[in-house]
């Protein structure tokens, strides 16, 4: 394997409005290596889900390029696109809505197999579905059941089995554990890690939950209002966040430890609407260290050492005000 499995350059999505447009995603670039987990984190409206959808062309980008395995993914024709989709699958947040309520588990999991004609016979199809269900910790007795007969965690396992069916190399997981209870969430996170080890899967893991991201991701990309503000390995990003937004995000996450009365960076104000973004650095109106330059010019994503990059005019780890 020479290049990255997935390479995204200047990915942009603008949604037209009656007046102006929403820059949902604004020039996002990153790579994902085979077998690696890249987390996309940020708050609602930051464009992380739209980015995830564009990776699979569920939403068409306005600009930018996506290369999968070195091949231009956006230029693919219909037939070639469908073939490529075998190799990249998606798992959604809401396991109640992402499984067709009228289908039985067997047909849900077998859908990618059917579409790509991957099974010779009905017997082979059933055998493969049972194998997939076993992989995600479900039993063959569940084959003939409907989604509503399962709990949220079990449904998410079914969704993962479906994603695994065509033996993909990349899975985009859009908030896959956010709708689940804590104890079940841990089960699904462990399952995803086991599967990654077993099959060498790459994940793009979209989440707002920093603790889960810290656990599962190899690298983390932080988004704010459509732009990437920081990207680096999980270790460096959590131990030495360079962007003030990343720092605020980390300090705001509630920690289940009452002994630790942390000093929070409580950001003033709300996330501005993506339809009306601030000039310069998008974060400047809420930034505790903003200067005049932040209003005027957009900071580039600069290397701050060891491939860790941050889009801040003041590219150094700021001391978190205590």
């Amino acid at each position, binding site marked *: 394997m020479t290049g990255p499995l997935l390479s995204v350059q200047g990915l942009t999505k603008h949604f037209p409005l009656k007046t102006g447009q929403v820059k949902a995603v604004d020039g996002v670039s990153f790579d994902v290596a085979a077998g690696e987990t890249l987390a996309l984190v940020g708050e609602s409206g930051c464009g992380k889900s739209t980015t995830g959808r564009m990776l699979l062309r569920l939403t068409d980008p306005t600009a930018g390029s996506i290369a999968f395995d070195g091949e231009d993914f956006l230029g693919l024709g219909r037939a070639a696109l469908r073939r490529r989709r075998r190799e990249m699958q998606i798992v959604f947040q809401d396991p109640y809505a992402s499984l067709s309520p009228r289908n039985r588990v067997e047909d849900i999991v077998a859908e990618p197999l059917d579409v790509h004609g991957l099974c010779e016979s009905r017997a082979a199809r059933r055998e493969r579905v049972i194998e997939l269900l076993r992989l995600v910790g479900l039993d063959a007795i569940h084959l003939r059941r409907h989604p509503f007969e399962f709990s949220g965690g079990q449904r998410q396992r079914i969704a993962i089995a479906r994603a695994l069916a065509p033996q993909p190399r990349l899975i985009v997981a859009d908030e896959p554990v956010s709708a689940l209870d804590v*104890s079940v969430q*841990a089960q699904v996170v462990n399952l995803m890690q086991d599967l990654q080890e077993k099959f060498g899967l790459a994940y793009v893991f979209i989440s707002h939950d920093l603790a889960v991201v810290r*656990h599962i991701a190899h690298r983390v990309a932080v988004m704010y209002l459509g732009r990437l503000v920081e990207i680096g390995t999980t270790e460096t990003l959590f131990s030495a966040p360079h962007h003030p937004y990343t720092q605020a995000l980390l300090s*705001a996450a*509630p920690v*289940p430890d009452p*002994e630790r009365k942390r000093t929070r960076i409580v950001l003033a104000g709300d996330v501005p609407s993506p339809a009306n973004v601030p000039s310069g650095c998008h974060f400047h109106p809420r930034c505790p260290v903003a200067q005049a330059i932040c209003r005027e010019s957009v900071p580039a994503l600069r290397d701050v050492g060891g491939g860790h990059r941050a889009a801040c005019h003041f590219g150094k780890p700021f001391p978190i005000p205590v």
Partner: protein
Amino acid sequence: MSLLEVDDLRVHLFTDRGVVKAVDGVQFSVEAGRSLGIVGESGCGKTMTALSLMRLIPEPPARIVSGSIRFDGEDVVTMSPDRLRALRGNQIAMIYQDPMTSLNPVFTVGEQIAEAVRLHRRDTRSAAWTRAVEVLHLVGIPDPDRVARAYPHQLSGGMRQRAVIGMALACEPKLLIADEPTTALDVTIQAQILELLRRLQGELGTGIVLITHDLGVIADLVDDVIVMYAGKLVERAPVRQLFAAPRHPYTSGLLRSVPSLDIRERRLATIDGTVPPAHAMPNGCRFNPRCTLARDICHEQEPPLVDVGNGTMAACWAPL
């Protein structure tokens, strides 16, 4: 006398498929100016417990079959509808997960708060409006005059939740029930709302019952915690005690399954299995099929809630 004393509360759902014991023998109390967190996973009965406190449970199918809920000495369970109405929104207020459920889209925020005030106080329109602007200011909304004249959809999620909290506090209730008040909000906004609730509790001395699945929020805000599992209260403890030394295996499992922000575990601890379906509860302790420490007695007899020291009560035959 405590502000709120709940004793042996049982709420059952009478459905076509049989009786579901949604809340089965819950007891706790909240002192004035203190906060209690009710934590548990979906279906554990925490929301049903919260709704019972104001008798807001959907009847039918739900019914309070036994127990008492004493608010300021008065039993809510046997209270007359008139008395109940006078209490709701006035002495006990509630905020929900989704602020939009408490706001009517066709009225301005100020009108709705003023309306809530006039429901319980014989204020003039202008006095009620002044009060509305005042509480918007109290909950930290910049430019409360303008926001009072805004419609809910013109506000961001965080602002709406502030407005809803303001509306709940408008009549200076003694008790505030908050059902997942920050779950729908972004992390940075959640931090703002938690700060706000903490500040208001200190300033106004309101008792708070906070329902959440988020152990981080619990650790952040409350004084005492009850942990619920499958309709049962499994553990009750002061917050520090609970996080430092959980006594019920379920509490312990729950705490360990939360990934940490500081260290990276190789593998997350989990609680195997899933919550049993409501109409097929196991005999004995309801947690026994998922408990690694279950013994014979756990399959046979329900453990009573007993004092296990350090201010902790646990319903377990073999507390940790």
